């Protein structure tokens, strides 16, 4: 998983780039950025051995603000890029980060299959229950009665997506929820997620102060989950589907082995493979 850098100890600042974020002042994503750099520093992952992959959205801009390898791809496909990278380069610490629209709407299918596939990557979704980048439309996690978008003036009227429950049933191996207003907690959870083998999913409630200003009030609602993490999927399922979305902390810790490609080096020469065609 992550290589530990024994010689130089880096501070969170060392994982930040000098590039100024495009985010609105007060956007929750600022503190997620601070948390991820903190987690990487805490684990002492060498900068060159970490990669952050993202799609499109305000939140997906995050790679450029860090100092590790980054990939800013197209909308909704970040998990596929991250999976390909990790499978081809198992030596790297791969994080995938983005928004709820990117991950659960346009990229929803990849979310399901990334959970199933259980590649050893960490997926951090900055969930603001809105499409920030395109100026405020409803996302899959938006409450069905939210009337703030011109596109759905009477509310979406459709069922709200429950990412953690979906992740559990699809096979994610580590499931946690946090709030950007508590950056130390977020950093701690991301660090745990990185260290846990297989596909780890961290939902970070990250307010969009511009299109969902009421989300500033989240700080008064969030609470630590009332129970210890479980590795019993049945119990976790009950909790995840039953909670109101504001229970924070590690909610499920699975023990499925991570996706592996055959690792035993065979190194057969290609000439030998070719011979099969020879008459």
């Amino acid at each position, binding site marked *: 998983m992550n290589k530990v850098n024994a010689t130089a100890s880096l501070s969170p600042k060392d994982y930040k780039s000098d590039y100024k974020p495009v985010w609105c002042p007060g956007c929750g994503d600022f503190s997620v950025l601070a948390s991820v750099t903190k987690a990487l520093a805490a684990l002492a992952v060498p900068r060159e051995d970490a990669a952050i992959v993202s799609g499109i959205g305000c939140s997906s801009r995050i790679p450029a603000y860090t100092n590790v390898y980054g990939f*800013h791809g197209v909308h*909704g496909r970040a998990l596929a*890029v991250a999976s390909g990278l990790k*499978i081809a380069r198992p030596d790297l610490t791969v994080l995938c980060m983005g928004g709820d629209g990117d991950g659960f709407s346009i990229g929803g299918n990849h979310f399901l*299959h990334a959970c199933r596939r259980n590649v050893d990557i960490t997926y951090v979704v900055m969930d603001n229950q809105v499409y920030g980048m395109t100026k405020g439309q409803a996302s899959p996690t938006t409450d069905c009665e939210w009337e703030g978008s011109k596109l759905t003036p009477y509310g979406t009227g459709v069922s709200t997506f429950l990412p953690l429950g979906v992740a559990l049933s699809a096979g994610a191996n580590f499931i946690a929820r946090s709030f950007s207003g508590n950056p130390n907690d977020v950093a701690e959870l991301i660090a745990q997620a990185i260290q846990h083998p297989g596909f780890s999913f961290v939902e970070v409630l990250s307010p969009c102060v511009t299109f969902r200003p009421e989300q500033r009030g989240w700080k008064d609602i969030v609470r630590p989950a009332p129970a210890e993490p479980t590795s019993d999927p049945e119990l976790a399922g009950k909790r995840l589907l039953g909670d109101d979305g504001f229970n924070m902390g590690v909610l499920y810790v699975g023990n499925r082995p991570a996706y592996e490609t055959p690792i035993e080096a065979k190194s057969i020469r*290609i000439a030998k493979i070719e011979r099969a*065609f020879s*008459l």
Partner: protein
Amino acid sequence: MPPDGPAESTVTKAVKRKPRTQTGKARSTAKAASRQTVSIAFTGSGGAGVMTAGQMLLDAAAKAGWYGQMTRSSGPQIRGGEAAAFVRLSSEPVIAPNNVFDIMVAFDWMNIDRFVDEIPLDERSLILSDPEAGEMPAALAKQPAAKADLALATVAKEVPGGRPNMVALGAVSTLIGLSEEKVVAPITKALERKGVDAIRASMAAVKAGRKAVKGARTDYRLPVSIGTDRKERWNISGNEAIGLGALRAGMRFVAAYPITPATEILEWLAPNLEKLDGSMVQAEDELASINMIIGASFGGIPSLTATSGPGLALMMESIGLAVAAEVPIVVVNVQRGGPSTGIPVKSEQSDLNIALYGLHGDAPHIVTAATSITDCFFTAQWSVHLAEALQCPVILMSDQQLGQSRTVADRPKAQPHVAKRLTALPGTEDYNRYALTESGVSPMATPGTPGTTYVADGLEHTERGRPSSQSKDHLAQLDKRARKLETFAFGDHWAEIDGEGETVVLTWGSSTGPALEAAKMVRAQGGKVKVVSLRLLMPAQTDRLEAEVKDAKRILVVEQSHSRQFYRYLRAFYDLPFEPEVFAQPGPLPIRPLQVQTLLTDGQKRS
């Protein structure tokens, strides 16, 4: 003349015939005495073992030193449905489908109407069918071919464990002059796992089939064995050749979603990538496949995906990402009939437009095309090399006709092309991933390299890789990405050029074989023809192609599409000296050499 046996069977009587004299100009070179090529169609319903018979015949013929090709045609059924194996054998390399079938063996008449158009027959052809299958359908009965009974089922029943397809194999091998011994090896190889009894039963059925046509006409025979000093030969399909060529170049990561007719590339690559310590992922869809290979390639591993039209359409947005972020990838597109689900099991060259023009934005990319089954090997190897050298996506075009056909051919020449990426050195100061270099190619840092972290971005960016919407950065990067392809020396591989002459055939992909064979026939009659088949479609090698046609008096464009996609492409990118003639035929019927030959000779008469 065959000797008259004392106990002649009905089959023998019907099949026995004097070699007829030549009729029809199409077959003027196929003299009975020195026949160079023979074509066989096996047809039947599911479980009849049509494909096995075809495969074993090809293998047996290869043993005898003949060249050959087998194409397959099947109905829409997943399993069992009717199928046809088309085998063409020759003492010379087989490069195209035959004009006419010499022998058709029908195991039954189930849905035979679906194949009739694909099995041209003439008065020199022979239809062998099982009387137990009932009356011959009208579409075949009206054909000028000779007809004879071959009681496949009855003969097979007399042999314990015997199967009709092995009886057919025995009969056909005798008719074309293959000794029994040549048939033993493929049977032994194919049935190895089933044990000696299965092998014995099959051999007995083959013997019975041979006996059933004993003393039959001899005019379908190919010359007995070619010399022993021959070059090494391969038995390979186009799809396998793509896989092998890519591995040869150093490709080591594949993510893909199954689709006909590309799936065999994946099936072949899965175990072989593993042998070379590479990996294969079956993705959840083509959106995932393309992005997974982009991720793997960003990680420094040469990567490939394979698909067909519907999958290529899904991948388009992300191929544009690979252009913008400058990530080398190879996307193999094995074309089938389109649009939409179209005709999944049959060939067409109608994805040219999407490969050339399907990307949004100004997105310079490379489009290559294999020119033959064995060239799939070369073109795949070259494509991986190009993608890596130019940090750019390559769309490699093949089609069902090339991909799912199997050839016995001379081993393709070894090629030097390997994946060689310009990478950044550790600790490069002020590393600019998208630096504006003269060639347009800039060093690409591999994750794991200290001191050169950067963000690969599909957003327009500065040299440093920072997002930018400024006109100067956009222009500089557009120029850079275009320059890579404009200044690169693609060398002589841009086209396969055959012959000289004032008549020039312009073609590509699986239409190349029929064009080459037609040109050969025309030359045999004293005509002069040059065939140019384009391997590099994009970037267009304008000067080179124009030089090939500048002295032309006639230009004939040959392609397998309805809307003349290749012709339109030629008109868009090259200054042709005059308006060419166009032979564009949509799939699924293959273009046959005689069609091209007729156009070439008729035209010559006209002028």
